[in-house]
């Protein structure tokens, strides 16, 4: 297999060239650039509301685009839409399969989606004619569990799956429009850019990939993590990507400079990151960990500025509302907490 060996050598060579090229573009570190920025000081957020109602582990939650509605999915087979300010349940949707791993709220507020070990993404219409919430579509074509899904609009949705691919679906016809293949491990999470032109996916092959939705190809790949990437998100200006991994670190990658800018780690944090969210200005990064806490980082200075402790089990999902006012954490102890 002389050819295989040649190809492999060429690949290693190219990878080295890329690393070298990245180094030449690295003419400054964030520490230097942010040296003049004032320190944020200790950030203390308190629990304002606790949303009780789920009976089993909560695996995912997502805020709606208005300020107070959010949807959460739990392994008791229920998808609950909460009005967070009054803690009322607006909808409690029973699911066909209770092994749900993700949920999403459409930007229009009309639809919610969920999926999990049934390999399907089920779309529910919240604004049905007679007020009942019914399944609108079941998108089935994945050969692995659904790890994350995000709406682009009422007609398109992107899903990531354990079969290492991400797929763009057309909801009206229920078919796959584009398959984004390239990861070598289970794709665990995805995030959509603020202008809806790109999306990023993090996988168990320790890399994150940036995909162009329209051109259907992978634009950039970011490596550097030492373990599975569990959570991923865009920086609010859409030019940088934040990833959280099982190796207990979060990394900030820049899309235009095509490299890692900063790593958020601390020797006293040993538990993997399960979920992350950034505050509206991008100054604070909230990361949920296996050790039941959420750590708050100052993104520019890479220092820990706070801890949210209040859950009795792993923090599985975290989200900041669209106006940036509150952050919601969901945990395996079946409670959602709103912090402010």
């Amino acid at each position, binding site marked *: 297999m002389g*050819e295989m060996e040649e*190809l492999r050598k060429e690949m290693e060579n*190219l990878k080295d060239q890329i690393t070298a090229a990245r180094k030449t*573009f*690295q003419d*400054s570190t*964030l520490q230097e*650039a942010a040296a003049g920025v004032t320190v944020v000081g200790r*950030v203390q957020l308190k629990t*304002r*509301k606790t949303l009780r109602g789920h009976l089993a*582990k909560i695996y995912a939650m997502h805020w709606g685009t208005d300020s*107070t*509605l959010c949807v959460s999915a739990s392994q008791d087979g229920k998808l609950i839409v909460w*009005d967070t*300010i*009054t803690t*009322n349940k607006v909808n409690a949707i029973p699911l066909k399969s209770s*092994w749900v791993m993700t949920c999403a709220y459409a930007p229009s507020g009309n639809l919610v989606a969920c999926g999990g*070990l*049934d390999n399907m993404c089920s779309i529910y219409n919240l604004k049905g004619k007679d007020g009942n919430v019914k399944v609108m579509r079941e998108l089935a074509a994945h*050969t692995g*569990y659904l790890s994350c899904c995000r709406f682009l*609009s009422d007609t398109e949705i992107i899903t990531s799956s354990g079969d290492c691919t991400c797929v763009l679906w*057309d909801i*009206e016809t229920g078919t796959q429009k584009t398959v984004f293949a390239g990861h*070598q491990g*289970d794709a665990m999470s995805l995030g959509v850019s*603020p202008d809806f032109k790109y999306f990023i996916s993090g996988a*168990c092959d320790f890399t994150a990939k940036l995909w162009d939705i*329209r051109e259907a190809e992978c634009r*950039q790949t970011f490596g550097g993590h*030492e*373990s*599975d990437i569990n959570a991923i998100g865009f920086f609010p200006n859409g*030019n*940088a990507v934040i990833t959280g991994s*099982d190796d*207990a670190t979060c990394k900030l990658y*820049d899309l*235009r*400079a*095509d490299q890692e*800018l900063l790593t958020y780690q601390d020797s*006293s944090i040993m*538990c993997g990151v399960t979920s992350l969210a950034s*505050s*509206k*200005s991008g*100054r*604070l990064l909230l990361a949920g960990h296996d050790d*039941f*806490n959420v750590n708050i980082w100052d993104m*520019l200075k890479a220092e820990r500025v706070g801890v949210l*402790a209040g859950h*009795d089990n792993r923090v599985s999902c975290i989200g900041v509302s669209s*106006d*940036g006012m*509150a952050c919601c954490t969901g945990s395996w102890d079946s409670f959602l907490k709103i912090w*402010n």
Partner: protein
Amino acid sequence: MTIRRARPDRLQHFRPRMHCLKKLEAVVVEMQSGVKGSEQKLNVTTIPHVITGKDVIAWITNKMKSTTEESEAFGTMLVAYGYIYPLQNHRKLVMCNDSSLYRFQTPYFWPTQKWVAEDSDYAIYLAKRNIRKKGLLEPYEQAHYNHLHEWLNHKWDFIVMQATEQYKAGKERRKPDRVVFDCQERAYWIVNKPPRRTHSAMDSGLELLIDPNSDEKIPFDTYRRMNLFYQQAIMSSKVKSSVSLGALNKYVATYKNHDPFLAPCLPSNPWLTDNDSYWTLNMRQVEVPTKMRVERWSFSLFELLRDLRGRDDFKVFLKKEFSGENLAFWEAAEELKWGTASSMTSKAETIFKTFLVPGAPRWINIDGRTMGLTVKGLDHPHRYVLEAAQTHVFLLMKKDTFFRYLKSPVYKEIQKKALNPEAHNFSPAQLEHNAQNRSPGIHPLILWQQAEAEKAKAAAASVPVDVKALMSKLDRIK
């Protein structure tokens, strides 16, 4: 519906926590030489190498320079994973910051030893305890025992034989050694088979499908594709990191006062005071926006267009300048991009007639090449057929019109008119009152109906005015 679950191989079970466990092991090894142990009496027997919770937590605080609470949490994590086990209250896996007694678990029973606690091993353990003294098992253990007896019935003779052997071997040890080994084994099983309704640190959730530890053969084709990708990656244009860092810095600084986590919001944060004024003042349809909102419009064209109230204001300005067709085209293109597939052909036609045909009522001024491409694409309209034209128009607005808008009297006027609400200053009694009288807010269905009504109005208004028909109507009225 088939649910496909991967067979957990030995390594997969610990995979999610491998990293964490390796680091913990390093800490435990250090701790073993750092924390002093002593001999303690426990139920008549003297047990060597016993440590107190106080000492462990003091050592952790010293090593990691953390607060006492964090050290306590870290200590509890070590107990929950089974590296340290309590002697007195063996069922409660918590590290207490007092003189409660603990011992280091023997490395044989550490979680990273890469073997999963098997059912048959557990059955042997329970059988052994049963032999020693009937009725010693806890209710949950008894339930497990009965279940395993049924499940492993075919192996039961083997299991009982093993249990008897181990029991006999145990009797031959010296009493202190036997007690120590019993404690270790008991601790190991409490961690791996916890009683019901307690959560176990070993809970790892759902298993992965692909095992990256396996050396899978990457096919020839994949190599070629990867190499192509890397070649393209080298040639792609990159920006110096100082530029990106500057941009990040600038963004964070610009939005600093608009981040509710960092700066207070006026009049008051609804989460803190249970008063909805902030949301009512910032609603979509409000006549007079707040100062902060108006400031956000000046940050970028993207922000201005994203906020529908801002878009309205921009439209007012454009009407004065008689250049509203760019924004109208941009909005129409957005509708095409996100609309239903069935409406696409009709929308494409309307857009063509209104904006692109030479001599159209709202003709947009884009360069010849883009125009040619777009018109050709409209023969077979799809979601992104207007992408090139839309980007061109957006850039036009961004580089030229947007800045003129910021300097215009329209913007200055709205800046003056904008509200700067007084900060609320609620007394504790008033806060109580607020919490009890919280309004349920406007039901989302009503908001949605309002939005639909507005869309219908906008659609009706944007139909190009047929001048001839209007003139003839006026003539007829006369």
